[in-house]
């Protein structure tokens, strides 16, 4: 089944609302609302940013959970959520970069040069944004306002990494009701196929 960008963006937004709702109720909900919960959110954001930062890209989904927990805690930190418009912009970006990569990859190979995959390029951008936000070293040189922007940028790159990572993964959706990486991969691949 081929799905359009708008349909998939709406599904991704609903899926992420579920991730946000669940983490709010359970992971962050171990502390009462207020400074205590903010501390847990910050700790979760830092811990998962470091896991993703230190990880290699793989095809079997090991980055899925830390990336989702990072996105959820970063959104909670900024008091925002990710609507269909955010997901659509991310899908457009992934689609554009994958097309560019497919078109120029063979030319690079003919010159003996390795061109990073779109997922690898998004991970590089995410790594840089979380480093600039001071999440990796525990401290940073950006002002408080710019830190928020760096986290917003990290969410932006993290969404794109998640979509490109899902499209590249070896996960195949089954008939269960699970909305996991395989579910995500099926939708992303379907939307990207519609554009090719």
């Amino acid at each position, binding site marked *: 089944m081929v799905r359009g960008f708008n349909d998939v963006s709406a599904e991704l937004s609903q899926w992420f609302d579920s991730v946000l709702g669940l983490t709010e109720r359970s992971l962050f909900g*171990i502390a009462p609302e207020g400074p205590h919960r903010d*501390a847990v959110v910050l700790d979760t954001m830092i811990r998962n940013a470091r896991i993703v930062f230190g990880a290699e890209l793989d095809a079997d989904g090991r980055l899925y959970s830390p990336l989702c927990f990072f996105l959820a805690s970063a959104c909670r930190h*900024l008091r925002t959520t990710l609507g269909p*418009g955010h997901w659509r912009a991310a899908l457009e*970006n992934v689609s554009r970069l994958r097309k560019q990569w497919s078109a120029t990859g063979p030319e690079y190979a003919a010159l003996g040069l390795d061109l990073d995959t779109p997922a690898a390029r998004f991970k590089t951008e995410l790594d840089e944004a979380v480093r600039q936000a001071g999440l990796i070293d525990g401290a940073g040189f950006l002002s408080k*306002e710019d830190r928020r922007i760096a986290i917003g*940028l990290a969410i932006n790159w993290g969404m794109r990494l998640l979509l490109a990572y899902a499209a590249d993964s070896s996960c195949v959706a089954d008939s269960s009701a699970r909305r996991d990486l395989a579910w995500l991969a099926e939708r992303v691949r379907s939307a990207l196929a519609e554009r090719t």
Partner: protein
Amino acid sequence: MSKELLRYRRLERRLWMTRWLREGEESAEEDAILDEMDAAWQDLSESEQAVLRAEGPRCWPMDSSAMPPQFADAQWVSEPVAWVHEGFGSAEEAILSAEAA
């Protein structure tokens, strides 16, 4: 880099963030930043304006062809600022404190 250009870059980042938080929808906050940017633009030298024109806009988070904001010219603080847990030494301390309350 002039303080006028630093100010303009800071406004670019704020505009990017404001638009991104609202999924690209227009807002009063965006209008206020755009007004401030118009004024800041007039304070830039011709060469600075030429540089900004040449590199294209950085304030369109919902457009996949637009450049992202950059921090290379942000006003860095002189000492690294550690992340703090709003008055707690660690998340663990915050949790224990909440349990005791």
